[in-house]
């Protein structure tokens, strides 16, 4: 009995010791700046969660190996505490609380997806913890008046805006007829709002406006309507599932449409899973390796692509690139603030105006990045069936010429 008591006392003493030492591990210890992040390492977002984590880790290693962060004449190294949010918004919010109030983290990196960022933002806002996020694009994140939220990516409503404007341009400036199908989730519905704005601006007409259920696995009805009405542009957004379903059924039903624009082609590994059937699809992307932005850490997109592939064994999707960019933004802000005071860092973040390999970064009042346009790439395949994504719009960044209209199925 006595021994048992001693053991219990001993264990609790160690536990108390650990818990206090964790608290003292807060934010900046010795030469370390500790950032916190809740990431989806399991659950339905785990693939993209891992891309996000790899992007963060790649940037941490790079910045640390290139001299770290210099604040007030002293050099600091980045470190990140990760927790797995299980792709669950409630869990993400709890973990944000834990990172801030138990682990004492004073600066946060964002999770993956708009939904989880929405769950975490109120928490970081409550504690006045600056958060730089790279994977929450939903417009509603930037209209809530958050002061401590900064997103390096372009908001969701701009994703396919370029596609509509390009279609109008190719139509001699006249409005086009648009058919659209969007999943009923925060992100896709924001993309839809962007299309509505673009249509209004350009005098285009929306002739089909389908809202796909979340458990979407069949778009046959929407595509039959498209066949019957023959629109100029078909726009689809429904995460990877939407992209894969759309390409499969468009090919099977032989739907001829002059322009097909989508989101999440990258994440869906469209050309790998569908081969030549995915050819000519236009895809919205936050980043592409051929863009010519530059910085001192990753040099440019091509170098980033090569380095990332060497380290992780697969080509970086844009989710990884934007995550790496978030760290560059933090480093820049710390150095300009010259302090670890949360208010000062927040103000320095708000004044960010820089170029990274991922694109220019400058935050608007709401926290979204307004200095980086979306790009569109088109899936192009050669005769052997090998497919590649080539940037076709905006023209400034284009590495190939847009193929328009898409050849009919009978000629392919």
């Amino acid at each position, binding site marked *: 009995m006595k021994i048992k008591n001693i053991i219990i006392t001993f264990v609790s003493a160690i536990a108390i010791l650990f818990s206090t030492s964790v608290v003292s591990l807060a934010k900046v210890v010795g030469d370390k700046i500790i950032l916190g992040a809740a990431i989806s390492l*399991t659950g*339905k977002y785990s693939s993209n969660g891992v891309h996000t984590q790899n992007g963060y880790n790649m940037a941490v290693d790079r910045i640390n190996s290139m001299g770290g962060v210099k604040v007030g004449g002293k050099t600091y190294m980045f470190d990140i505490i990760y927790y797995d949010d299980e792709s669950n918004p409630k869990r993400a919010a709890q973990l944000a609380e834990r990172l801030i109030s138990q682990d004492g983290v004073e600066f946060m990196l964002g999770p993956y997806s708009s939904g989880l960022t929405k769950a975490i933002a109120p928490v970081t806002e409550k504690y006045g913890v600056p958060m730089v996020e790279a994977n929450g694009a939903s417009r509603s994140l930037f209209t809530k008046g958050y002061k401590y939220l900064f997103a390096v990516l372009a908001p969701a409503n701009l994703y396919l805006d370029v596609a509509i404007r390009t279609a109008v341009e190719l139509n001699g400036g006249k409005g086009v007829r648009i058919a659209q199908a969007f999943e009923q989730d925060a992100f896709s519905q924001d993309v839809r709002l962007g299309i509505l704005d673009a249509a209004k601006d350009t005098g285009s007409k929306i002739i089909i406006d*389908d*809202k796909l259920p979340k458990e979407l696995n069949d778009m046959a*009805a929407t595509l039959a309507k498209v066949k019957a009405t023959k629109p100029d542009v078909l726009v689809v957004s429904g995460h*990877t599932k939407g992209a*894969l379903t759309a390409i499969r*059924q468009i090919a*099977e*039903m032989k739907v001829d449409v002059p322009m097909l624009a989508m989101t999440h082609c990258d994440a869906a590994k469209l050309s790998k899973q569908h081969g030549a059937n995915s050819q000519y699809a236009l895809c919205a992307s936050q980043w592409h390796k051929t863009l010519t932005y530059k910085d001192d850490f990753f040099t440019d997109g091509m170098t980033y692509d090569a380095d990332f592939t060497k380290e992780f064994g697969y080509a970086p999707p844009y989710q990884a690139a934007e995550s790496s960019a978030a760290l560059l933004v933090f480093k820049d802000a710390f150095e300009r603030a010259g302090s670890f005071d949360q208010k000062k860092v927040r103000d320095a973040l708000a004044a960010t105006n820089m170029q990274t390999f991922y694109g220019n970064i400058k935050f608007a009042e709401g926290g979204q990045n307004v200095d980086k346009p979306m790009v569109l790439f088109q899936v192009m395949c050669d005769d052997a069936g090998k497919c590649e994504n080539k940037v076709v719009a905006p023209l400034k960044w284009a590495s190939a010429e847009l193929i328009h209209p898409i050849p009919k199925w009978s000629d392919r």
Partner: protein
Amino acid sequence: MDFLIFQVPMLTVQAVLDGLLLGILFALIAYGMALQWGVMNIINIAQGDLVILGGYIAYFMYLYGIHPAWGVIVSPIIMYFVGVIIYKLVINKVVDRDLFISILATFGISILFMQLMNFAFGADVVLANSGYGTTMLFDNSVTLPNSKIFSAFISIVFAIGLVIYMKKSKLGRAIRATAQNARAAKILGVDTEKVYAATFGINAALCGVAGALISITFTIHPYMGLPYTIRSFMIVIVAGLGNLPGVAMSGMGLGVFEEFADYILGTEFRIGSVFLLLVLILVYRRFKLSKKREYLK
């Protein structure tokens, strides 16, 4: 715009055919559910997850260069044993208990399967390409993917096969006897334990076939099982228990109803309208039942 279907008559044909093909596939999953619900009085929440697991078997065959259509043979064989193992480990402990307990147990199995599949296969949405091409009717105005026709055909073959098996084979007769009265069957020498295991195995095998078909017609993902569970549940509710031809009819009926709801009300009301129909049918049943009781008094 909403009534495009009335302006373009060919869309009606397209909607009916799409709905039928989709409905037949769903009916196959519901078939398994009706069978084990009838025999064991268990509502299997993990039904959809068994379907997805079956889909992954076909997908991995496709990855290793085997045509995924062979999945309709390999997948049910593997899934039969998966079903029997699940029965031996979990279901046999809840089979005579309250319906609520069995729902909880299968709900647990469902979560476990989702997480295990996510862990083993990753969270990417995947599919298997059959390369079957397309059938075009009426001068290319109605298109039917051959993979969907193939799915419907295979579903019908398995459904008919099952009906014959239940009628003719010894085990089939034992299953039907157990469904009618488990106690009496036991007294007359039927090994109900074995019957239950076989029933659950057959259900899992049917899910395996359906999963293989879904991997070549739609997409699969570890977390996509629940919609299939709900859909088959609905089909069984509409058809009534122990009514296998009814399951086929209600599957196809719901499929067509859903397609028309999509064209007339809009895609966003597609699922909602099916649920509304379910509620109406339940209310109607209740109404009829209450009438009957009054009459008997």
